[in-house]
């Protein structure tokens, strides 16, 4: 289960960011911000390597003592960053990938909504519900 999920636009400003618990929000905002550099690094590194198929899933961006940060980038250069609790070792790569896939699908739905202007913050309830289902259950 994630503790923080963020959707970052192509121009590197947040379209959507949510974290649990709410008091640590600022710390997670900062973490996501620093992880953007790592994302850029990975994306440009992949470009130069001239691999046949570049993966959208970027994998583990960097681990700290408390948590791990994972990244995913879409074709339109929108980035998804997920911060996961380190103590939760049960989470495997596959599960992270499937969480990102769900995120991507929900984001695509938001994008196709004609009332949504690309570049605005995301206020969709469906998106909110999907993110809630992926976050840690706090009593």
């Amino acid at each position, binding site marked *: 289960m994630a503790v923080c999920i963020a959707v970052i636009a192509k121009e590197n400003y947040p379209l959507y960011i949510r974290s649990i618990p709410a008091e640590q929000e600022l710390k997670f905002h900062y973490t996501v911000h620093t992880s953007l550099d790592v994302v850029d690094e990975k994306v440009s590194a992949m470009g130069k390597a001239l691999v046949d*198929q570049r993966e*959208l899933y970027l994998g583990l961006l960097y681990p700290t003592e408390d948590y791990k940060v994972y990244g995913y980038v*879409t*074709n*339109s250069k929108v980035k998804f960053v997920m911060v996961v609790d380190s103590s939760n070792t049960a989470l495997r790569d596959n599960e992270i990938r499937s969480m990102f896939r769900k995120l991507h699908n929900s984001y695509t739905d938001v*994008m196709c909504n004609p009332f949504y202007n690309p570049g605005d913050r995301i206020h969709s309830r469906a998106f909110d519900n999907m993110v809630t289902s992926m976050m840690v259950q706090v009593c």
Partner: protein
Amino acid sequence: MPAMADETLFQLLHTQVVAAAYGAGRGSGDEGLRAGLTVLEGMGFRVGQGLAERLPQGALAFREELDTIKFLCRDLWGAVFGKQTDNLRTNHQGTYILQDNNFPFLTQMAWGQQYLEEAPKVLGEQFLAFTCGLLRGTLSSLGIESSVTASVTSLPACKFQVVIQKA
């Protein structure tokens, strides 16, 4: 359940959207025309942005511009019009010509002699504005700024010229 009437419905909707864009309430003459063009193209642009998210299945396979244009010709055309473009030409300096010899929006008009005189100017610019916006929106979402124009030489064939803006 397979969608069988989708294409026809889309064509009918498109025809009506075009009629509404240039229709009453927008004023006649050049200004009204430009307003209608802007509306149509803008609509296409927004749809293109949404499609750019949904269509590429999975990996980022676009290593260079040409790959993205080929994606337009194959996948975008396939999803929206049910076929692929017939010809793609480029001058390798940022200009691409996508040619479709049997463009779905124009097939109905090709049957008789009625529209032959009006064909080139009116159709190319005004009728196909939505499609031009569609291409521009998809490219923009995939990171390429461009300007797209359409021209009709002989119904139902048409050409879309994409000019990539160099930053």
